């Protein structure tokens, strides 16, 4: 590992660590109740009491950002899990067995891939109602095809390796070959795509809640905070800056980690 890569890894890891820490604080205890309103602190600036200031209801922005990070992380984790799980199942089956099933599933896959994931989620949520679980489901579905495609490609490669052919000649069952010989080999490719997936999920979640299709208020979400802050861009640009920077940092952390993992 050369120096820059090492540096990237360290920075990426520390940012991700910071985000994890924020998530934990968000779960355990925030300085203020993120939804508690205080008429006296409306759009208050930065102070020791409120390091990030307050929003239009006098709610502490730091607390809201912390809970927003938690929300984004949990949603992204669920989305990536759905994507990885179903993507792996589909990709393995189609890649391993091939045939007409493969052909149909891959065309369907292409059809879903033909939309940007945000667009797909937008339509699903717009029509079936917004909320945390709907968002997870919508983005999760949108994430399946890309994982399926990656896994399928990898399975195709492994399937044709000599030793798999040999094992098959020994009479091993398909299930055994898949579980014992193929799945463990997917680790590396899955690890890097999980990190990239996380990156995309954070971005998609923020975009969706920016469009007002994320978690319902008053629950804080980074994207919604940004869009609400846009109304105060002349008088209080800071209300937009903090949630924005946190989103940037989250994505930066994942992309740095992703870079280093991918190349090793």
């Amino acid at each position, binding site marked *: 590992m050369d120096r820059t890569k090492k540096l990237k890894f360290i920075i990426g890891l520390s940012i991700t660590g910071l985000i994890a820490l924020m998530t934990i604080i968000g779960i355990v205890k925030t300085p203020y109740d993120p939804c508690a309103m205080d008429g006296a602190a409306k759009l208050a600036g930065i102070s020791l009491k409120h390091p990030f200031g307050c929003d239009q*209801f*006098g709610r502490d922005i730091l607390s809201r950002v912390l809970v927003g990070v938690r929300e984004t992380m949990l949603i992204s984790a669920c989305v990536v899990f759905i994507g990885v799980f179903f993507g792996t199942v589909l990709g393995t089956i189609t890649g391993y067995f091939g045939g007409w099933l493969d052909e149909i599933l891959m065309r369907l896959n292409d059809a879903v891939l033909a939309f940007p994931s945000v667009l797909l989620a937008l339509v699903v949520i717009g029509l079936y109602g*917004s*909320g945390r679980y709907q968002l997870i489901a919508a983005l999760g579905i949108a994430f399946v095809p890309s994982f399926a495609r990656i896994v399928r490609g990898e399975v195709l490669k492994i399937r044709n390796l000599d030793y798999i052919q040999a094992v098959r000649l020994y009479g091993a069952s398909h299930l055994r070959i898949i579980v014992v010989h193929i799945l463990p080999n997917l680790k590396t490719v899955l690890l890097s795509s999980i990190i990239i997936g996380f990156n995309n999920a954070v971005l998609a979640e923020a975009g969706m809640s920016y469009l*007002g299709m994320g978690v*319902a208020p*008053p629950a804080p979400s980074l994207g919604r905070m940004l869009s609400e802050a846009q*109304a*105060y861009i002349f008088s209080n640009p800071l209300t937009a800056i903090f949630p924005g920077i946190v989103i940037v940092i989250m994505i930066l952390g994942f992309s740095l980690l992703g870079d280093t993992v991918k190349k090793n």
Partner: protein
Amino acid sequence: MKRIIALVLVSVTLAIALCGCGGDKTEGGSSKITIGIPQDLEDSLDPHEAVAAGTKEILFNIFEGLLKADSNGNLIPAVAKSYSVSEDALTYTFTLRENVKFHNGNTVTADDVVYSILRNADDGSGNALISAFLNIDSVNIEENDIVIKLKAPDPDFIQYMTLAIIPKDQSDAATNPIGTGPYKFVSRSPQENIILKRFDEYWGEKAYIEDVTLKICANADTIVMDLKGGSVDFFARITTAQALQLEGSNFEILEGTMNLVQAMYLNNAVKPFDDERVRQALSYAVDPDEIIDLSFDGKGTKIGSSMFPAFKKYYIPETADVYDVNIDKAKELLAEAGYADGFSFDITVPSNYQPHIDTAQVIVEQLKKIGVTANIKLIEWDSWLSDVYSGRDFEATVIGVDASTMTARAMLERFVSDSSKNFINFSDPEYDELIKKALNTYDDAEQTKLYKDAEWILTNKAANVYIQDLAQLVAINKDYTGYEFYPIYVLDIAKIRPAK
């Protein structure tokens, strides 16, 4: 390499320089105005088919009825020059004004008027676009007069004579509105703008401003930017937060009332809201003053029943004081009703209207004090219409209800048990009786009393958790003046004029 960098620099500078011509600034005092509207008219432009309040407030400038409303809420003659009502209140005679022109240049004839009325009356199967028109027995032309005969007296009938008069031979009314109003329709570009032009052959006082662009500002968060940046000169409904940000700018903020009843409407048919005590408990716990302070900077009028202050004749100020905040009383009532430990419910709020969302956010906090957990559920306006309003599948919703005509009936008839508009499933025999009596009473004082009694029932039974009549804040560029508030939902562009 250098050349490439130079090329990049040149193209970037060029692009930025081009932006100089981007801002299409309106000159002060010129004869055009850009009016921001919060949503597109995703609707038919046919005045009889249009349903959205946002569409009707614009069509007000294009169409007129035999009569039209003025800014005091009175009916004044428009396409009709005068009218009279017979002694038995069954015959209405309208005298047509001479030489009223449609925007297509044709003169309005009695035939056009009859066509416009009959189009909304009984279609032969017992249905009518306007249900009050089912009461019409006949419409006849006598020389220059239109004579309408009713089957039974209806004290509110005259209010419906603001019905838009349209040409009888038009086939594309849904996309190309032709009326007699002070402005004519030029074009519309969905989600972008609607363009109107002054109608120079208007029979009455002509509009001041020649070219009007109604710009759709769908993103509420960028409205301040649009106003301050100069791309919008006028916006009829800004929030208090937006108003604060416009302080010290080139905008004047006018304050009026929205003329609607904002409340947390409760589904009286579902548990636990079928219990009057629970509804009263919520009314004691919710503090409209705090909502008005926190979400609306103190602007707004607290109300206590389904009537707003602009309807002076019917409005009862005392209803607003019945449920002064009393947490102990609220808890007591909950305990009596068997909910000592509180309960939890969903407040369904349409996602496109921030003031209602903001109100709901404060209510959630206030209800925590009596151990009641409310969850906000945001849904699209259309889902709200189909699930909440038509389907009545909800527990509570925060929304504003306004009046389609200037009658108490428009506000109160909906809460009659079997009304198709009674989305809260309110059911009270005494109320039904009062409204039925009021509808058949022709004496004004007596009728007013009946309506007021009905309002008290809504308050005492805590049909809904009443909150406020929202303040309407209008931002108008100081280059313009003359805007007038109406007690109904209209935007009268013809009155706006350059300040100089």
